[in-house]
C-alpha cells in the first residue's frame, strides 16, 4: 500500500509543477458549466429577419412591433420578396417575412389573409424553433388588437385565427440534419487533425532534444516555422478534399459548380489558419501533454459555440463575442453558404478575410514567440 501511496504522491508533486495543468483542471469545468448552462439555449434571439410590408397598415405594423418586442427577431426592411431570399442566401438574414398588399383589407373582410414566413433551412434547429415560435405573430396578444370595437365602427366578426401564417423553408427544404452537420463536421475534423499534428510537431523536437541540433544548424527560426507549416498544410488540404468527397459520395452532400472556386479558397485559408494555430500551440507548450490539453481546450468550445450545433443567434449576447474569435464560426458560415445556398463569393468576403487573418496572425505570432525562445 505504501508504494502505491508513494507513487500517487509523486504524481501530485509532478502535477503541482505544472501550473497550466491545474489551470485546466479548474478552468475547464467552470467554462463548460457556463457554456452548457447559459450559452446553449436552443431558443433563438435577435435572428435577423428581412421583411417586406406592402400593406403598410396599422395591422401589419402591429405584427412587426409584436415580433420585434418578442425578442426573437431583429427586423429590417428590404424591397421585394426576391430580395428576402437573397438576404437569406447571403447569410445576412436567417428569416424573412412578406406581408401582402391587401392584408388589412382581407383582414377586415374576415377573409383570413396569409402572412408569408421564410426560414433558412441550412440551420434546421433554427428553422424548427422558429416554426414553433412563429406563434409569436398570431398569438392572442396580437390578434386581440385586431378586433374593431370603436364607437364609429361596426363590430367586425373575426374568426379565432384572424390570419394564416405560411412558413416556407428555403434551401435544404427537407431540413436534412446531415446537410446541416456534415459541412461543419469537415471543419471540426480538419481542426482536430491540424491542431494535433501541428501542435505536437515542434514540442516533440523540444522533448527529444532535436530542436537544439536544428538551431545549431544554419536554419533560421523563421525558416524552421515555415518548414513546419508547409507539410502539415498539405496534409490538411488532402484531408479537406478527402472528407468533402466522402460527404459527396456517401451522404449526397450537394457540390454545386458555383462552389468550386470558393471551396479551394476556403480550404487554403481555413487549413492555413488551423495549422498556424496548431504551431502556435506547439511553440507555447513545453510538453506534448500540454499541447494536447490546449488543443482540446480550443476544440470543445469551437464545437459548441461556432454555430455548428446551436445557432450563434440562440446564444446570449455576452457569449457571442467568443463565437466570433473562433475560426470554425467563419468556416461554418462559408461552407454552409456555398454548398447549400450557393451564396456568392462577395457575400462571404468578410468570412474569408477573417480566416486569412487568423492564418496570418498565428503564423506571425508563432514566429515572433519562437524567436524569443531559448532552448
Amino acid at each position, binding site marked *: 500500500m505504501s508504494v502505491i501511496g508513494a507513487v500517487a504522491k509523486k504524481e501530485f508533486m509532478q502535477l503541482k509543477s505544472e501550473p497550466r495543468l491545474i489551470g485546466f483542471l479548474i478552468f475547464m469545468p467552470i467554462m463548460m458549466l457556463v457554456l452548457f448552462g447559459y450559452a446553449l439555449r436552443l431558443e433563438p434571439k435577435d435572428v435577423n429577419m428581412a421583411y417586406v410590408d406592402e400593406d403598410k397598415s396599422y395591422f401589419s405594423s402591429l405584427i412587426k412591433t409584436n415580433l420585434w418586442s418578442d425578442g426573437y427577431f431583429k427586423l429590417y426592411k428590404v424591397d421585394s420578396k426576391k430580395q428576402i431570399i437573397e438576404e437569406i442566401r447571403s447569410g445576412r438574414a436567417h428569416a424573412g417575412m412578406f406581408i401582402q398588399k391587401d392584408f388589412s383589407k382581407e383582414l377586415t373582410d374576415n377573409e383570413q389573409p396569409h402572412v408569408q414566413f421564410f426560414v433558412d433551412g441550412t440551420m434546421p434547429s433554427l428553422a424548427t424553433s422558429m416554426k414553433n415560435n412563429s406563434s409569436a405573430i398570431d398569438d392572442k396578444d396580437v390578434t386581440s388588437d385586431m378586433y374593431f370595437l370603436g364607437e364609429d365602427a361596426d363590430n367586425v366578426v373575426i374568426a379565432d385565427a384572424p390570419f394564416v401564417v405560411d412558413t416556407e423553408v428555403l434551401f435544404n427544404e427537407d431540413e436534412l440534419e446531415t446537410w446541416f452537420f456534415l459541412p461543419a463536421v469537415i471543419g471540426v475534423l480538419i481542426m482536430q487533425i491540424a491542431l494535433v499534428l501541428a501542435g505536437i510537431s515542434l514540442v516533440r523536437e523540444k522533448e*527529444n*532534444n*532535436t530542436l*537544439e*541540433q536544428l538551431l*545549431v*544548424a*544554419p536554419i533560421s527560426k523563421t525558416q524552421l516555422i515555415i518548414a513546419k507549416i508547409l507539410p502539415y498544410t498539405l496534409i490538411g488540404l488532402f484531408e479537406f478534399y478527402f472528407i468533402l468527397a466522402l460527404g459527396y459520395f456517401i451522404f449526397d452532400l450537394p457540390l454545386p459548380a458555383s462552389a468550386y472556386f470558393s471551396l479551394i479558397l476556403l480550404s487554403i485559408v481555413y487549413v492555413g489558419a488551423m495549422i498556424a494555430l496548431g504551431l502556435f500551440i506547439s511553440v507555447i507548450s513545453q510538453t506534448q501533454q500540454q499541447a494536447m490539453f490546449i488543443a482540446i481546450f480550443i476544440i470543445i468550445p469551437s464545437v459548441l459555440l461556432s454555430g455548428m450545433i446551436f445557432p450563434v443567434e440562440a446564444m446570449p449576447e455576452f457569449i457571442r463575442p467568443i463565437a466570433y474569435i473562433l475560426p470554425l464560426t467563419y468556416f461554418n458560415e462559408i461552407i454552409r453558404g456555398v454548398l447549400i445556398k450557393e451564396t456568392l463569393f462577395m457575400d462571404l468576403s468578410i468570412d474569408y478575410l477573417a480566416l486569412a487573418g487568423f492564418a496570418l496572425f498565428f503564423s506571425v505570432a508563432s514566429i515572433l514567440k519562437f524567436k524569443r525562445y531559448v*532552448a
Partner: protein
Amino acid sequence: MITLSNITKSFNRSNVVNNLSLEIAKGEIFGLLGPNAAGKTTTIRILCGLLKPSSGEASIGGIALSDNSDALKHKIGYVAQYFGLYDELSVMENLRFYASLYERTDEKTLLGLLKRYKIFEYKDAKAGSLSGGYKRRLSLCCALCHQPEVLFLDEPTAGIDPSTRKELWDIFYELSQEGKTLFVTTHYMEEAQRCNKIAFLNKGVVVAEGSPTEVENSLEAYDVYKLTQEFKYELLEVLRTDDLVHLVNQFGDELRIIVKKECSKEWLGGLIAPYTQGDVSLESTRANLEDVFIALTQEVVA
C-alpha cells in the same frame, strides 16, 4: 580559434557563468572541467549560439558570436549531452537529414563517415534501436557531416563503457590531428589528462587553467602524502578537522592527504599512528588532477 572575453550569463539574477575568459588554439583538445552545475553546459551553449550571453564577447575562427551568421554555423559542430536523434528514422536517414541542413548531401561522403566511425553495418537500423555507444557514434557523424572546424562535445563519454570511451578518444585525437579544434566538457579526470589544455570551472568561475601538468602543479603550495594501509574510520574525522591538513581524498585503497608545507611527514605519521596497526606507511607523492579538482571545488565552496 575560440576566444571568450568576460562572458557572463545570469539566470534570475544569479551568475551561472561569471566573467569567463578563455583562449583556445586551432587543433587543440580543450577540456572544460567542473562539478555538476559549474556552468560547463551553459558555456558550450553560449558558444553554439543557443544562449545569448548577458555580457561579454566571444568569437570562433574570427567571427563574432553576436553576428549569429550562417558562416559561423558552418564552422561549428555540436554534440549535445543528449544528442537529438530521430528515433523513428534510420541511421542513414538521420545522417542524411542533418547533412541536408548544411547542404552537404553527397551520399558517398556520408557513407564514408559511417564507415569511418564503424556504424556502417547499422545504416538501415532505426536510431531508436541503437545502443548508447552507437547512438554516440551516430551523433558524432551527424555533427561532423559538414566538416566543421570546431567541434563542441558536451560530456561525450557520459554513460559509455570504457572500451567505447577509449575508441571515442582515439577519434578525438584523429580529429585534432586533422586540425580540428575540440572543446570537450567532462568530469572524468582520466579524460582531462588526455586534453592539451584544461580549465577548471566552479560556480561559473575559472579556478585553474593550463596543461594538465600545469594544473596539477597548482597545488605546489601543499605537500601530498598517500597512506596505503588499513586505518580506523575515525582517522578521517581527525585529519579533516586538523588545521594543517588541507584536504583528505580517499582514492581506492589509498588515502591521499594534502597538507600545508609546515606540516612534516613525522608529525603527520604521529597523528595517524593511533588509528593504524603496525608502522605507518606514509609516502610522499605528486598531486593528481583529482586532488586539484576536489581541492579547488572545496575552496570555492568554503
